[in-house]
């Protein structure tokens, strides 16, 4: 029961702040609501006993990427951005996409309705004693089971990083 309450609280926070992120006029307010949405998602991870994912979400997204976002937002001229009209071109496309997404989610709920014993999906926390230690499990799958894909992905990221540095560097 408490699990349900916690889940729906976090989920509501995540959804509401995600909506607020795209509707606020002020960019800094948007950033704050994006941080809230990310933190609420981290909370859901924690509730699912995925504590490593929880802390990675906080360190990388909230503590790393969002700090850079806010940093850049403060460097740009906010007044200019506020005056400009937004949602100018993608109105119909985005409506279409969100309708399709809503249809998919609705279909999921509709089909799960007929399954025995459950109308709504039940959100129960994972049993804590049956899981292996979280960070160890992540390390096992990253560095043993999927070592090659992981290394390829990291090389890709490195290339992207070097490319960004080269493009940003002033030619003298």
């Amino acid at each position, binding site marked *: *029961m*408490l699990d349900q*309450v916690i889940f729906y609280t976090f989920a509501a926070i995540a959804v509401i702040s995600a909506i607020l992120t795209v509707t606020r006029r*002020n960019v*800094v*307010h948007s950033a*704050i609501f994006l*941080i809230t949405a990310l933190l609420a998602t981290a909370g859901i991870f924690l509730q699912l006993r995925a*504590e*490593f994912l*929880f*802390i990675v979400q*906080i*360190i990388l997204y*909230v*503590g*790393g990427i*969002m*700090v*850079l976002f*806010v*940093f850049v937002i*403060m*460097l740009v001229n906010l007044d200019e951005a506020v005056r400009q009209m937004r949602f100018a071109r993608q109105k119909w496309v985005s409506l279409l996409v969100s309708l399709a997404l809503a249809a998919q989610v609705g279909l999921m709920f509709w089909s799960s309705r007929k399954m025995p014993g459950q109308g709504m999906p039940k959100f129960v926390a994972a049993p804590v004693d049956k899981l292996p*230690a*979280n*960070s160890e499990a992540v390390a096992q799958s990253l560095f043993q089971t999927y070592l090659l894909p992981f290394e390829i992905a990291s090389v890709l990221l490195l290339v992207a990083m070097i490319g960004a540095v080269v493009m940003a560097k002033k030619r003298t």
Partner: protein
Amino acid sequence: MQGVIQATMDFVKQYWAPLVCSLAIVAILPLVAGYIVLVERKIMADMQARLGPMRVGPHGLLQPIADAVKLLIKEDIIPDEADKLVFWLAPVLSVAAALLAMAGLAIGPAFQIAKDINIGILFVVGVSALGIFGIVLGGWASNSHYSLIGALRSSAQLVSYETAAGMALVCGLLFAGSLNITSIVQAQYDQGIWFGLLAPVAFFTYLVASIAETNRAPFDLPEAESELVAGYMTEFSGFRWSLYFLAEYTNMIVVASVATTLFLGGWLRPFPRTTWLNFLDFLPPLAMIGVAAYCFMRTPKQPARVQQMFMLAVAGLCLAVALVLAAPLVVPAVKPFHDGILGAFWFILKVSLYIYFFMWLRFTLPRYRFDQLMRLGWHFLIPLSIINVLVIGIAMIVGQYFNLTGGALLLTTIPASIIALIVALFILASEQKSEPQKASAAPDSYA
């Protein structure tokens, strides 16, 4: 509804001890922070051959309480052009992140709020890094140039030094083989050596980076009063300002605790496995009795009667602490709590020494210029920490090959650390050679 109440009651029943602990931390920490400020002022006065605060209470011992009352009854000013909501939110965010990080720390084996969490030290580091939003948003919301520049500096500085600090932590974690705080300290007990000695370069990197992360002098550029009034705190006053202050001092305690846990043996006494040094267990109560005796001696010299009474009260408090510390050594019934009580003493002692070192640096070194700070971070500390992780890893593999454990690992890690230091210095020197005038002449966009 019934179910929710029932579940909440069960929750409280199961977790009453951590709940009480966290309440205690939230209640006590402002007082502790206040007294750290007093100690800082006293040390500063001592180093500058002054007396420091002397008026409120004997030797200024009640100064923090007077300061707190002053801050609480000050007028609360919000600038007209400020973003009210964010202005309100920012200091709260700062202090909440700092207090939340305290939950993951272990003050001795017995006192830990979130017991044995698998991600232990990552939780502390990650959550305490959220405090930066308090600074950045506060600086932005006050709608003032000084505040904004302070906030920008702060975020740039934190992002730069977070990398070095993280890499330094990785080095310690390599030796520990776990993120769990209890296992980290246990690993230091098993190997019989502090990881700070095994990886001195990592410890040094973390030390420097943690000073930069807590915005302490000589890296206190975000609040450089000679250039920016008070940096991001310029527009804040009264209670909001004191929240920022509380967050800053809590962060100091947090980084000191992380360094103590990972590099200085946590709650272990020095040389925990050397049996002939067991008499060190008697040191804590004896030290407290010594402090109490000193207070008794000073009592007749106090000018006012109230101050004499207060001095006696301090002496009594020290004696009480000494009794608590001596109890597990003398009373058999308290024996099971031996590690918990004495461990807390050693942990707090190490954290205090670390914070003392911070203060010592603050009163010794002049403030850096902002581009110098950035250069130190990016051109020296980050290469140093990355190379250090690399060579320490190699040193550990070599150590495993020769079956070296504990103190014997020093044979491989010390040369590795020296190599890392030399390579990093070489990189720094070559950077400076390639752009000799540019480094000093180039104006920095946010300096």
